[in-house]
């Protein structure tokens, strides 16, 4: 049995007493500060024990796992179609991306062809969730640097996005959206109308938010040159998504390995240079514009025909009224629910570009209707390792800002 070592002790062990107890000329000495686990400034449950020299951070030690819910274990006991609600709760700021990522994994395993129309609908959903994810991240960066107004202003539009989700699947935050092969029902006219309205209303609001923060002197002073990371270091730490692109690497799963017909759309990958808080903010700011561009193209190119799901009766639950009135539908319903459908044996890895980076699903199937092993590649968990290095030498208040600009989501961190 391993013994619990207090984190303060872990930090103290790294330095000899001479350094820890040294008194500077002005009488100051190093101190240990416990930031978290439940601190109002950290937006989630993160514990950081900091060794501080006055206001400067000398060293840090992180704890995680406060909201660990054993999703990988639970997933080994749930049929494929019951795993989506688990993926919702990873990055709960953009749950539809996780949902779609999971369906893509299952479809890759089963080898299902998805109609173009469904793919475009999925692209719209994923880009909407990316926008809502970036709205949260950037407006929270604003809040943490002292600008609350922008947050309140753009958060209305996150509500609008959630209203679209609500029209499509009935839920807002943890969406549990879709089925193997497509969506559970066709989008209602109200959903399309809300989407159109959002596409007209949101871009000016986003530009207004941009005008308020981006060139604001106070905001720039707080964000520039804090929490920078070099491209090499970021790759070594396994950064993906906007945080990696802020460091100047143009890796994006949507381009590197297009899924869901992303190759049909014209869009740019914004990259930063210094990888600091300001670059991360700017990359997200620009990515929202690119997402809007993709949604516009998807709406223009949306095929009229194609339905809202692939024709895979073996895996796609038939509509309820048909189950009651139609023999064939009843049989398929029974077979799907009772797990009588054979599933290929084998292993697949499938990934999508989530709000924070590459969200991957590694699935080992043993031919039964539950995964033998399912591993979530959670971008937050991997890049949060770099946090200690990024805050060394920074001020305490910058460390808060760095964490919110990295968009570390507790649900994704702890799975």
């Amino acid at each position, binding site marked *: 049995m391993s013994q619990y070592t207090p984190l303060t002790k872990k930090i103290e062990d790294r330095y000899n007493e001479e350094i820890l107890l040294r008194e500077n000329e002005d009488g100051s000495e190093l101190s240990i500060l416990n930031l978290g686990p439940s601190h109002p400034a950290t937006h989630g449950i993160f514990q950081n024990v900091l060794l501080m020299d006055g206001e400067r951070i000398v060293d840090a030690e992180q704890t995680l796992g406060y909201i660990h819910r054993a999703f990988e*274990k639970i997933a080994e006991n749930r049929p494929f179609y019951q795993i989506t609600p688990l993926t919702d709760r990873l990055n709960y700021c953009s749950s539809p991306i996780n949902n779609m990522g999971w369906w893509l994994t299952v479809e890759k395993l089963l080898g299902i062809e998805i109609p173009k129309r469904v793919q475009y609908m999925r692209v719209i959903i994923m880009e909407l969730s990316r926008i809502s994810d970036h709205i949260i991240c950037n407006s929270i960066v604003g809040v943490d640097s002292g600008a609350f107004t922008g947050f309140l202003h753009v958060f209305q539009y996150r509500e609008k996005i959630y209203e679209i989700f609500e029209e499509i699947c009935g839920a807002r935050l943890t969406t549990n959206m879709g089925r193997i092969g497509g969506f559970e029902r066709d989008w209602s006219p109200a959903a399309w109308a809300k989407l159109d309205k959002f596409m007209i209303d949101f871009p000016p609001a986003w530009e207004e938010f941009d005008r308020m923060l981006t060139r604001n002197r106070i905001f720039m002073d707080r964000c520039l040159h804090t929490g920078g990371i070099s491209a090499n270091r970021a*790759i070594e730490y*396994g950064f993906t998504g906007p945080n990696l692109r802020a460091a100047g690497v143009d890796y994006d799963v949507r381009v590197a390995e297009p899924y869901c017909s992303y190759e049909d759309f014209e869009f740019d990958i914004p990259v930063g240079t210094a990888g600091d808080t300001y670059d991360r903010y700017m990359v997200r700011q620009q990515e929202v514009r690119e997402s809007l561009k993709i949604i516009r193209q998807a709406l223009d190119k949306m095929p009229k025909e194609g339905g809202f799901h692939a024709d895979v009766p073996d895996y796609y639950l038939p509509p309820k009224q048909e189950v009651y009135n139609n023999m064939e539908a009843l049989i398929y319903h029974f077979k799907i629910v009772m*797990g009588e459908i054979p599933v290929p044996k*084998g292993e697949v890895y*499938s990934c999508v570009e989530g709000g924070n980076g590459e969200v991957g699903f*590694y699935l080992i199937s043993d031919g039964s209707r*539950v995964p033998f*092993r399912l591993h979530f*590649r959670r971008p937050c968990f991997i890049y949060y390792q770099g946090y200690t290095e990024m805050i060394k030498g920074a001020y305490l208040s910058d460390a808060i800002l760095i964490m919110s600009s990295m968009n570390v989501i507790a649900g994704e961190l702890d799975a």
Partner: protein
Amino acid sequence: MALTKEIISEKITAKFGEAVRIDGDSLDYTAVVIESAKAHDLIKYLRDQEGFNFLTDVCGAHFPDNDKSAQFAVIYHMHNWVDRFRIRIKSFLNAENPVINTVSDLYLSANWQERETYDFYGIEFKNHPDLRRILNMDEMESFPMRKEFPLEDQGRTDKDDRYFGRLPQTNNLPNN
């Protein structure tokens, strides 16, 4: 010249010979199974010679029905961003003493992922700088993702393995 499945498998087989074989379970990417003692060498070779600059993922798996010598596995996913090529590397470990060399000296990102694997499977990573539990609490004694630890109430009949299209688990591992 862009990498292909054939080129990379040929190169790896030429370099590692008997220690490596092609993994037939993979339905998508190139996958190889490597002896656990050579896993570090293979990953170093792929990183330095073949341009696999990114370690996407490290995770463990438990196969209680396998032979005693291959009940645990560590799975690495590597990615070559220049040629846009992925590879999956699997290394089987024995049941009594699952030990493998760490790759956190090659990729910093492996640090926490290996800690997570240790936390859930009890797989020990040799030379790891700080191998302790990460998501579970330090006082915990078991390794919860091992198959011998059942989920939920075993008295429940509606979640019986047989209804999920597989035979009930055979627990031939001693309790930890």
